[in-house]
């Protein structure tokens, strides 16, 4: 609990939110990168199906998405059983893990779409040139495609981060709103509203807005200044 402008706010949800958003961003970059690379190189009509599937979380109301994730990730469900085979203990839902899993689904399109577009813009000729210099496919990806897509990574990371910060429906459903464990800022604000503590709600909203505005401005500025020009 700290006092800001004489209003007592708990900082836990803020740190938790940043932590979950950070992990989500990291995981989505790690998982989204190979997916986006693969999709960028697909030519067939399966690409269209995949693009649509990746965009689906946009369409589902987050609470509904959360509800179905709750059912799928239930500790007696197949997914958890499957993970137990690999020595996983504990539970996917109602934990930080659960929040992160939910957010990863929810923000999937925000990571994959910019990455895919960035990868599509990497000139084939440069990859060919690297191949003639004895770089294998992995090597080409890491030394040519990735550095040339840095804008895509920047956009993907920001959108994912921002979107996870603003996440509400999924984390409420999946997390269970346990203080210090799964209560994120968005839920905290809403709880304040519900229990008529408008001052706290306003303060937290303002903090979130200003923080996000700063992050976004920084990223857009970097994006314009340091983009590698290709071609």
């Amino acid at each position, binding site marked *: 609990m700290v006092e800001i402008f004489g209003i007592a706010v708990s900082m836990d949800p803020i740190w938790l939110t940043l932590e979950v958003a950070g992990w989500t961003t990291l995981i989505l970059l790690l998982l989204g990168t190979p997916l986006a690379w693969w999709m960028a190189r697909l030519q067939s009509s399966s690409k269209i199906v995949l693009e649509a599937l990746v965009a689906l979380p946009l369409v589902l109301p987050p609470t509904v998405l959360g509800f179905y994730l709750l059912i799928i990730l239930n500790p007696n469900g197949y997914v958890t059983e499957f993970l137990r085979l690999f020595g996983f203990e504990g539970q996917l839902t109602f934990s930080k893990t659960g929040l992160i899993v939910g957010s990863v689904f929810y923000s999937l399109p925000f990571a994959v779409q910019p990455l895919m577009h960035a990868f599509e813009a990497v000139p084939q000729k440069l990859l*060919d*040139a690297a191949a003639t210099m*004895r770089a294998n496919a992995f090597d080409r990806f890491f030394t040519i495609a990735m550095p040339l897509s840095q804008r895509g990574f920047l956009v993907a990371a920001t959108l994912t981060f921002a979107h996870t910060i603003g996440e509400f429906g999924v984390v409420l459903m999946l997390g269970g709103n346990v203080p210090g464990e799964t209560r994120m800022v968005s839920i905290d604000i809403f709880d304040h509203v519900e229990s008529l503590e408008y001052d706290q709600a306003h303060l937290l909203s303002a903090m979130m807005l200003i923080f996000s505005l700063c992050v976004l401005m920084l990223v857009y500025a970097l994006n314009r200044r340091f983009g590698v020009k290709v071609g």
Partner: protein
Amino acid sequence: MTEQTTHYLRGRLQLELGNFKLESGEFNLPMQGVTVLFGRSGSGKSTLLRAISGLDKNTRGELSFGDELWQRGKKSLATQKRHIGFVFQDAALFPHMTVRQNLLYGVKRLPKGIEAADFDEIVGRVGIADKLDRGVNFLSGGEKQRVAIARALLLRPQILCMDEPLSALDWRSKAEMLTLIEELVAAYQIPVLYITHAPAEVERLAQNIVFMKAGRIERVESLQEALSRADSPLFDDEGAVSVLQGRIESEERGLHPVVFGENRLWLSEASTADKKTVRVRVLAKDVSLSLSDPEHLSIINHLSAKILELIPEKKHRMLVRLQLNDGQKLFAEITQFSAERLGLEVGQELFALIKSVALTE
């Protein structure tokens, strides 16, 4: 600079790209000196070169280089294992790296046991020693191509592939680069597969020429064979051309004498590199004919020759095929009006006049 034994690149390759079908037919190319792929735009030169390099996954057919198998049916050896170098039309430098990083990219990836060429030597020869730490976006077109060439040479490839390496350059850079490529090929004895549209580049560099048409290899000829046909596709642009080979001697009064048989040509420009034999490119339209050895004339190159053939051409022109007394052939293009006036006949002995300033090596 060791002498290398000649390997052959042999096989037949197929590749479909949309509506275009490459179907090379059997080929067996000696990989020695420069082999030029020549043909009209869209004839499939780039496609063939990419298929040879293994850059297109849909390539089918057979390909072997010496006793290495590069392609059999769908199975193909990955590009990075073929020990080739590739120079693309637009250089294809990595924009996020400096010149030095571009140059070392391939060197770092050489397997143990294969050594890179001497960095300083290549960089110096190609003329980019003072630009190593620049970003590649701050290079001119010519400089970019130099880096691309150095980058490929550093790997000491078994074959160097070049897809129109000069076509994006202005005339000045083009001329410099052509000299450079010629020098490098001579110095490092690396076989080159070279794509170009420009007959001047062919005549300057080629040992053998692969003529392509509509996705097929139409024929493979040595440069001399290709130049002896009056209807050679090489002549489409500036008309017939002869390439004379001779021994260069030391400069006299600002001119460079080139000797073949009893004849002697005076060149006004020649590279200072200590080469013994040079190729002199003579446009047929720069050759005049005289029945007697003329005096009081600024033209100093008078070669005695014999008429082998008179080939009427369109636009009232006449192509005269001559034999010089060391056996080399020379084309002269004159008007039919002149031919009649001089009463030219096959077998006639006369003098071919060529202005020195019109000649380049």
